[in-house]
């Protein structure tokens, strides 16, 4: 809302319309998806849900979406998917059916939408009735002091289904990381590189190219060369951090060279 564009845009809208639009802005967060929005819009027709005019409802929804977009409100994708579908439904409702056209009639689609709205409204009402019932711990109560005796105590080991499912999920999550360990053939790990470089470092006299340190047999296939190069690189960074070697590179993309610092430092 702080962008200048938004300010100028809002200024141009007449106050009454702007207030209405702002009500929409506030409301869009309150809707639980496009069907919920449709249900709210259908209430404005002030008729029984079974008599709601689908065409009018589609119109209201499309106006809502257009207005939200003109006010630069980010609408979730499913609102736009619904808008596209409703636009299609509208065209089907307005135009006579093409001869030889397949699929459900526009009337069937409109009826289904009406059914969905009615069902959602019915579930809303059922949910409200359910929550209005007397509830345990609020309206009625269980025994406050369940009686226990210390005469004979035995231990029951217990677990709930959710414990079981979580345990399995935990194990399977571990499994998902396993592929790392499988394809060892073409992976030269950093630990291996570090181990190997540490052994070689004593023999390093002068500056040497990093590429000359590729282990034997790792310079042929591109995959193996990539892995060994990357690990070698990571290894020398680690060794430089520990003060064991010095690194230099004369230019961007120039060969990286290393030299032992042992004794020099």
């Amino acid at each position, binding site marked *: 809302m702080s962008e200048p564009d938004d300010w100028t845009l809002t200024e141009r809208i007449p106050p009454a319309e702007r207030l209405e639009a702002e009500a929409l802005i506030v409301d869009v967060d309150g809707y639980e998806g496009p069907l*919920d929005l449709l249900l709210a819009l259908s209430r404005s027709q002030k008729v029984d849900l079974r008599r709601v005019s689908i065409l009018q409802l589609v119109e209201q929804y499309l106006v809502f979406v257009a207005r939200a977009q003109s006010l630069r409100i980010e609408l979730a*994708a499913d609102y736009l*998917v619904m808008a596209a579908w409703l636009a*299609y439904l509208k065209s089907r409702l307005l135009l006579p059916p093409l001869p030889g056209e397949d699929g459900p009639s526009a009337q*069937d689609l409109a009826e289904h939408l009406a059914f969905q709205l009615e069902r*959602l409204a019915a*579930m809303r*009402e059922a949910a409200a009735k359910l929550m209005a019932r007397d509830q345990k711990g609020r309206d009625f109560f269980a*025994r406050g002091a369940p009686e226990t005796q210390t005469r004979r105590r035995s231990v029951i080991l217990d677990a709930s289904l959710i414990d079981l499912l979580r345990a399995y999920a935990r194990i399977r999550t571990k499994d998902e990381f396993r592929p790392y360990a499988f394809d060892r053939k073409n992976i030269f790990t950093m630990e291996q590189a570090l181990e190997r470089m540490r052994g070689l470092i004593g023999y390093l006299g002068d500056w040497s190219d990093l590429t000359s340190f590729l282990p034997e047999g790792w310079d042929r296939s591109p995959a193996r060369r990539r892995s060994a190069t990357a690990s070698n690189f990571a290894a020398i960074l680690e060794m430089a951090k520990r003060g064991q070697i010095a690194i230099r590179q004369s230019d961007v993309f120039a060969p990286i060279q290393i030299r032992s610092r042992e004794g020099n430092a």
Partner: protein
Amino acid sequence: MSDEALRDTLFDAPPMGEQERMVEAILFASAEAVSLAELTRRMPQGSDPAEALVTLRRRYEGRGVNIVRVGDAYALRTAPDLGHLMVRETTETRKLSRAAIETLAIVAYHQPVTRAEIEEIRGVAVSRGTVDQLIELDWIRFGRRRMTPGRPVTFVVTESFLDHFGLESARDLPGLKELRSAGLLDSRPLPGASELDEDPEAMGQSEMFEE
């Protein structure tokens, strides 16, 4: 005395009045509902807790505590009209989101119901955590798989859901009959192919869109 007669005497069930006291004491001592099977197991051999319950229930009618039925189990609960006296015992319960309440209602009225069906009814994806929260509250649980392609798992409500809302069974849900006869509990497929179900996962689980 024949062996049989002897055994009959040894295992004579206690008189009904005594059985009633026993059921009363067991229900009383427990915060949870106690099943008939559990009552039978705990009472002396030959007892008939079901019969004892009939008279006991009548005895508690109109009293400050009542015997209520929860699925296959029974429990003693304070009379709902006296709730205001008990406020001090209330522990703060987590406030459920609107999505959670609606999801709960849909599971209760449409059970067994798949996740895709819940989403179809609400017209919006069921967020992660909503189902988790309801399972954690022990109000819904996994039911049997639907015998349709993908064999999707279903959700049903639990006994502690019934207990919490004071329902004898899921058949006693308010307005259930009306909803059913109005056809509002049917899973009616969208005519023709659907362009609305954007979620490919839901697609696979749902039989609602398949002919």
